[in-house]
């Protein structure tokens, strides 16, 4: 695997993390507005409420995780840095995005088909975390 400059990883995940925070905290504000305005399409659909709340929460937390990853970039074993970075980006898009898409159309307690993206994103994010955990602090030669 070609090696990646930790600085570029740092920059990418910092930008991605902060923008993820911006997007999904904004979603939180939108959800609060939906409550304040008592928008029935949101309030009366328990599945949609849950999906969008999960999108808000996961998106925000994954934003923080990206920032943490950026701060750890220079301590991650070079050989695995690029893969972990890619998987974390995939997870950050698909996990909250899947929750959001799953709430657009709902079938009683079943979310829409968008929710199928969630396990893909979850595995990607989890993989990134596990890989990072394994290789943080190790030298490339380890």
């Amino acid at each position, binding site marked *: 695997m070609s090696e990646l400059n930790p600085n570029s990883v740092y920059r990418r995940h910092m930008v991605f993390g902060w923008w993820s925070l911006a997007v999904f905290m904004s979603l939180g504000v939108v959800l609060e507005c939906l409550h304040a305005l008592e928008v*029935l399409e949101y309030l*009366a659909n*328990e599945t949609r409420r849950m999906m969008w709340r999960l999108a808000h929460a996961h998106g925000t937390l994954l934003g923080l995780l990206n920032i943490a990853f950026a701060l750890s970039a220079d301590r991650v074993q070079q050989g695995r840095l690029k*893969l972990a970075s890619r998987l974390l980006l995939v997870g950050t898009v*698909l996990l909250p995005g899947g929750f959001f*898409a799953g709430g657009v159309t709902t079938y*009683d307690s*079943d979310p829409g088909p968008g929710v199928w*993206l969630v396990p893909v994103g979850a595995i990607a994010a989890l993989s990134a975390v596990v890989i990072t955990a394994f290789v943080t602090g190790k030298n490339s030669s380890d």
Partner: protein
Amino acid sequence: MEWIIITILLGLALFPVLVESRRLSVIRSTALSTILFVSGIAGIVTIAIFNIDQPDLAESTVVNRPTRVKKDGYGRSKRCQSCHQSQHHSWSHSYHSTMTQVADEAEILGNFDQTLQIGEQRFILSHDDDGYWVELKVQVANGFSPLYDKCKVVMTTGSHHFQLYWYTYPAQIQPLGPKKMLGLLPFAYSIEEEKWIPRSATFLGPQHHVGNQEISRWNNTCIRCHTTHPRPHVDGIKVESEASDFGISCEACHGPGDAHIERFKNPITRYEAHLASENTVDDIVNPAKVEDHGRQSQICGFCHSMASLTGQEHHARFQKHGTEYRPGDDLTKFLHLIRKTDENHPITQAILKSDPTFLEQAFWPDGMVRVTGREYTDLLESACHTRGKLTCLSCHSMHHTDDGATSLEVWKNDQLRPDLKSDMACLQCHEQFKEESHLKSHTHHSATSSGSRCYNCHMPHTTYGLLGAVRSHQITSPAIQVTVQTGRLNACNLCHLDKTLGWAADYLTTWYDHGTVDIPEEYVGVSAVVKQVLSGDAAQRAIAGWAMGWSSAHEASGSKWIPMILKELLNDPYEALQIIAIKSFRNIPTIASVPFDLLNASASFEEVTVIARNMWNQSEKVQESNNAILINPDGTFSTEGLRMLMEQRDERRIILAE
């Protein structure tokens, strides 16, 4: 929409991975193994939890009440909750769900810190950490003596208007206890009044203060409609009653759920069904999708009808195995639907042999049901159903849809569809009356008047129930001839309380070309409602007495003149009629503040008479001199007219058991 979002998300997420995919082989085997291991464990745990269908151990140890036992594909409603949350939520708030409850689980509404007495029987109510108790004592020469040990209250019936309490007998009472055979506390707790009322007073009947414990009535009768998939299992004193669930739960209307649950446990199967363009195979019945409108209504009709099981053989099978009827089936194969218009049917004739007055008590002479809870029988006599497509679900919904305007609390009172409030249900077919001008020319009332509401004329309050009058579910049109022939008040006079039958007949002739009606002598010159309150039989007095407290009628007729006539019901020999009078008085300003004693209405008679005379003098109607409501030409009340009408009272024995 969601597919566009999904595609964009996938594109955004996978692009960088695809670029690097040729290098994926570098994933360390340990990391992959860990992920697979964790995912696998999580999956196995999920599947295991999903597949666990444990027997209800708590129920299997119960010996002193009927139990909930899974059978024939039926189970308890809680298993539907995980997939159908909103439906389960609104159902669990409905009175269907709490029709039958286990006493130690239910919120017992009655006050169990008191003693109730009927005749020579005294019921001492109490509760402790072990539950709720009833102790029966009977009167002896020097006080009251315990008849037997305390009985434990184990089940309740109802949570809307009344709550009833069932108990099992202590071991010393042979051959009754302890068994799954239940006895009834002969008092009902009135939720509205927050008061205990003798059960005999909650039905329209001449019997007073009867301490009947109705032993095994629940096991033999109530179980059929107050539980889901009931099996009475009553063989003499050997009683092993069970049901799949208590109350009218999901599978009462949707049929057995086992196969449906098994099929849709698999999320892939569920999404195949969600995304399919056509209906996929399902093992559950959705009443709203039953194409035959007759069979759709029969799902409700299984309980909401005047019916009996078809023959001894079916009855025996029902005792052992429960009903073989499944929602969507032809109900008439399992139940004989008793109709006055089909009184020669052999099963009806057999019923009449054992109870010759059955049809007379349960139906008006023209075949309309006169007791509540039998709405499907009424529907069968309605052209809107027989010639049209009207079903129960045309107006009602068993699940609450949040439209932002109708709360769950409001909906659960009558379970009307929020989108079909007021005239909307009728306007689904009778679209022409959406036009205000058409409506006004049809009703001859202003469009906003209660006289322009479809149901006030076509579904008037002519059915007795719950200590009052409820709307008939037989869709009819007002006809004075019918009142003359059946004695049933018509919609016009139920609202225009101060008008005669002749007055209403004249308008119907003018407006709708009804033929001339020969008004019987007894109805000439007197308001139809006044006549029936004072001279009618008990069922007529009940409906007329209720109408005197109806706010729409007060708008049309005034109310200040009413107490002088209605007060006579406070001394009525039927306890239920005394209570109806009190409830009507509570809707009349000034007199509503009288502290009536529900169980001793006549005690308020003198006080009410004084107030009624004062109100009479203030009544604008009194200025008009109107014999129809007993106003003398000089504006005084016609005591003589009242006496004459009271002397004509129809004293026939009436029993309306709901």
